């Protein structure tokens, strides 16, 4: 058993590398990062400014050989000269900002002074043109823009969690954005998974043990209907229902925090958050819940018909013992493996749900990044959610070994 888990763990770094490779291939696809004139469409259509495009192209090292781009992006290799330049740019930009602040102060003083003089002029000397304020030196402006681009290019590469800066939101790092969105999505998906398993197991068991009764048949039909309902449609219908309900019955359907969350005590806050989460969680889990219940029913039926359950009955075990001790654990084996298959769907499905319910999670972040062509954020999201899913699959693999004693011997040989 331990060898099996150890093997899976040892595979992890390799898989993460594979994930980065696939993510990188998606970057290559992106119009802004392939070819020389790439991304000009984005600029022309007004989705990106020239400067933002440049930041992105520098982040993904457009123009270099592909294998070097990959290694630079990972942070395994670093263009030495550039490295020094970037640090210099950051230092310079800090200097420029300081200078700007200083200049702004001076300009403000100057403006006040001039206004005073003008006032004096007007009152004392009659109308006289005040000297126009000095226009900024165009050469200096250009270099500052270049410096700004340099300063927003990541220093170390994504293996060190340095994904660079957001292309469209200035002076916010990608990592910062993900750090804000990740807990929301994780918490929601955790709740969803728990709800799915807690409700689908009893439903499946009940259906299987009452096979062909009315309650089994109606549950089966209901689950089938649920499985086929598009989640975004259901979400909108729920919102429509909430709109038509009276105030005291209405559940909130925007965001996850109530207004004025900062001042609330813990318990009321929790209650309010629960109410906020009710609709999105319901919308996200019913489909998988239906699927899992159906699987659970089928799996349970399979197990109930098996010989060892008959043996347990022949021993004199009572029906509840037979079902919950002998049959349940065996029927869980295929269900546990489904967890791994569920996760990518949940993380991806949350794009729609989070957009509809305005939940500031990874899906919402990704959706906005797609709309604004925030490529750096997109790539980071890709890598992060894939690695998260990988971890989830690892967990389900470990659970699988825990449930089924046979596996370690079959594969560990």
């Amino acid at each position, binding site marked *: 058993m331990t060898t099996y888990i150890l093997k899976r763990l040892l595979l992890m770094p390799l898989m993460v590398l594979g994930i980065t490779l696939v993510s990188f291939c998606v970057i290559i696809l992106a119009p802004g990062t392939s070819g020389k004139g790439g991304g000009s469409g984005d600029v022309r259509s007004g989705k990106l400014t020239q400067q933002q495009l440049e930041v992105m192209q520098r982040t993904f090292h457009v123009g270099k050989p592909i294998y070097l781009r990959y290694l630079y992006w990972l942070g395994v290799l670093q263009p030495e000269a550039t490295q020094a330049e970037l640090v210099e740019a950051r230092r310079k930009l800090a200097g420029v900002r300081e200078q700007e602040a200083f200049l702004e102060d001076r300009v403000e003083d100057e403006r006040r002074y001039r206004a005073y003089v003008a006032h004096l002029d007007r009152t004392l000397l009659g109308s006289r043109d005040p000297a126009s304020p000095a226009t900024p030196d165009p050469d200096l402006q250009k270099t500052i823009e270049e410096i700004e681009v340099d300063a927003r290019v990541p220093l170390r590469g994504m293996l060190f969690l340095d994904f660079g800066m957001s292309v469209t939101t200035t002076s916010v790092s990608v990592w910062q954005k993900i750090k804000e969105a990740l807990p929301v999505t994780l918490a929601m998906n955790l709740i969803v998974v728990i709800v799915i398993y807690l409700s689908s197991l009893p439903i499946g068991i009940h259906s299987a043990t009452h096979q*062909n009764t009315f309650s089994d048949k109606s549950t089966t039909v209901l689950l089938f209907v649920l499985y086929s309902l598009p989640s975004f449609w259901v979400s909108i219908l729920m919102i429509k229902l909430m709109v038509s309900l009276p105030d005291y019955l209405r559940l909130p359907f925007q965001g996850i925090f109530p207004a004025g969350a900062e001042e609330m005590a813990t318990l009321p806050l929790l209650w309010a958050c629960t109410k906020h989460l009710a609709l999105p969680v319901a919308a996200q889990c019913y489909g998988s819940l239906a699927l899992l219940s159906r699987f659970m029913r089928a799996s349970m039926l399979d197990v109930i018909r*098996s*010989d*060892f359950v*008959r*043996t*347990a*009955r*022949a*021993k*004199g*075990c*009572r*029906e509840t*013992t037979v079902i919950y001790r*002998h049959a349940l*654990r*065996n029927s869980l*084996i295929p269900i546990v493996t489904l967890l791994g298959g569920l996760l990518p769907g949940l993380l991806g499905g949350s794009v729609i749900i989070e957009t509809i319910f305005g939940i500031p999670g990874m899906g919402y972040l990704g959706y906005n990044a797609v709309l604004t062509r925030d490529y750096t954020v997109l790539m980071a999201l890709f890598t992060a959610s894939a690695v998260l899913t990988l971890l989830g699959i690892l967990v389900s693999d470990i659970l699988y070994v825990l*449930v*089924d*004693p*046979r596996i370690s*011997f079959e594969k560990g040989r």
Partner: protein
Amino acid sequence: MSDTQPNGALLQVNDLRTHFHTDAGVARAVDGITFQIAEGECLAIVGESGCGKSVTSLSIMKLLPMPPARIASGRILFNGRDLVDLGQEEMCGVRGNDIAMIFQEPQSALNPVFTIGDQVAEAYTVHHPGTPMREAYERSVEALKSVGIPDPARRMGDYPHQLSGGMKQRVCIAMALICSPKLLIADEPTTALDVTIQAQILELLMDLQRKHRLALLLITHDLGVVAEMAQRTCVMYAGKIVESGATREIFSRPLHPYTQGLMRARPAPGSSQHGRQRLAVIPGRVPAATQFQDDCRFRPRCPLAQEKCAQEPPLEDYGAAHRAACWCAKREGYDAWKDAAAASAPKGASGA
């Protein structure tokens, strides 16, 4: 034997009918069978697959899924108690405790996710609630030892997939006997095993039967096993008992044409030396349980069929508690078989 004194029987099955209600109609899988087993006796039920042997045994244990299956009539008296009337809850007290059962496929008869020890100990604790863990463990080791499992204490922690088929069947026997039941139902206990293992398991069963004065209901299609183990034999065909009696009697004087067919379909010892002798086959197959008529059910396959066979023959006694349900059992049946047997295998064929 005990046929004359049914009150002394441990288990007495009277006119048992088990029907399945399916979409294709009512399947009369077991259709009015009567037999009894005395304490310490071994009774074999023989027949082709689809004859209702397994359904009979599962009916006694009430292990059939009850919505499709139904015990339409009959009584199953165990120690004077009618099992048909018992509810599932009371039946749980009987299963494993008074009547135990082992199955055909030891590969799948053990729960793959629990250790051998867990499963054997459970069989004990189910009927002795409140037993300390220690005691249940020791009893389990003892039971495993008694069925000939080497190093039982170490085997307790193993999972079923780590054991061979023969070992698994031994574990099943240990599990069945740990509460010292009075009756053991063995449903084709050796069919899924290698020939050498088969012999070991049979020997073990005979041993245990003698030691514990265990009544054994042996369900099998293997006449060799029957000849070796059973004192009495019932031959089943299409849900009915067509012939019953002492094993020796049936082997030396089969009355029913079906029994005769079974005997001929069996390779006789030494027959291979003759070379030219071929195994006789009973033409056709057992009709589906939904298609049973009210005539003699063997009629379509019977070499001796005649007009009278359109009526169902009663189970008649032909002396020495040897009964058969055939209109022509006495004269033609026996004589014809004797002639055929004499012609094909001049010597040694009757040496059962």
